[in-house]
């Protein structure tokens, strides 16, 4: 069974530029998560989707970050404009339900110059 797929794996951009990350969850997983992981830290939740509905986006900086999960499958996380402090690893995870085990993708490593 294929795991969580993310692209791109690496991205280098200049500050103030836009950037987008894509995630394809494990087939059949209704719940999708976007996490931010800084170096030496554990992942921190940005947003959680139940099917196509964002049910927890309290930690998403809405002035510059946006996300969507059209048709309840793939998801895109966007940053516009990017700031130096956004340099981090962006992880996508999925689970059968909110209380179930979360499986993570390989992450997208973002460097903002």
């Amino acid at each position, binding site marked *: 069974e294929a795991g969580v797929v993310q692209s791109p794996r690496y991205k280098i951009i200049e500050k103030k530029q836009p950037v987008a990350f894509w995630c394809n969850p494990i087939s059949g997983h209704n719940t999708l998560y976007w996490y931010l992981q800084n170096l030496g830290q554990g*992942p921190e939740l940005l947003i959680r989707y139940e099917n196509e509905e964002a049910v*927890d986006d309290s930690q998403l900086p809405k002035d510059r970050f946006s996300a969507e999960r059209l048709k309840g499958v793939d998801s895109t996380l966007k940053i516009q404009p990017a700031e130096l402090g956004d340099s981090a690893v962006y992880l996508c995870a999925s689970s059968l339900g909110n209380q179930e*085990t979360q499986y993570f993708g390989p992450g997208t490593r973002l460097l903002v110059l």
Partner: protein
Amino acid sequence: EDQVTQSPEALRLQEGESSSLNCSYTVSGLRGLFWYRQDPGKGPEFLFTLYSAGEEKEKERLKATLTKKESFLHITAPKPEDSATYLCAVLGGATNKLIFGTGTLLAVQP
């Protein structure tokens, strides 16, 4: 406030030298405690889920245990390929989201 503290921050072992990693947590209404392994440049890889005090789970050289305040990840006779960062996370509390610790960086030398 929900909180997860892992210790030690880093641990260096010789191959075959058994040890334990600690995960202390504070959460109201624990719904699950999760252990993940993370290799450099990769996403966290699921290891175990524990749901109630007294529960134990094993996988190869790893054994996870749970009490009402902490969890231990015991590593028996480790090999160099066990070198990784081990993350602990709890699900529960008012936010009902996964709260991670900062991890323990394990290095096993041959």
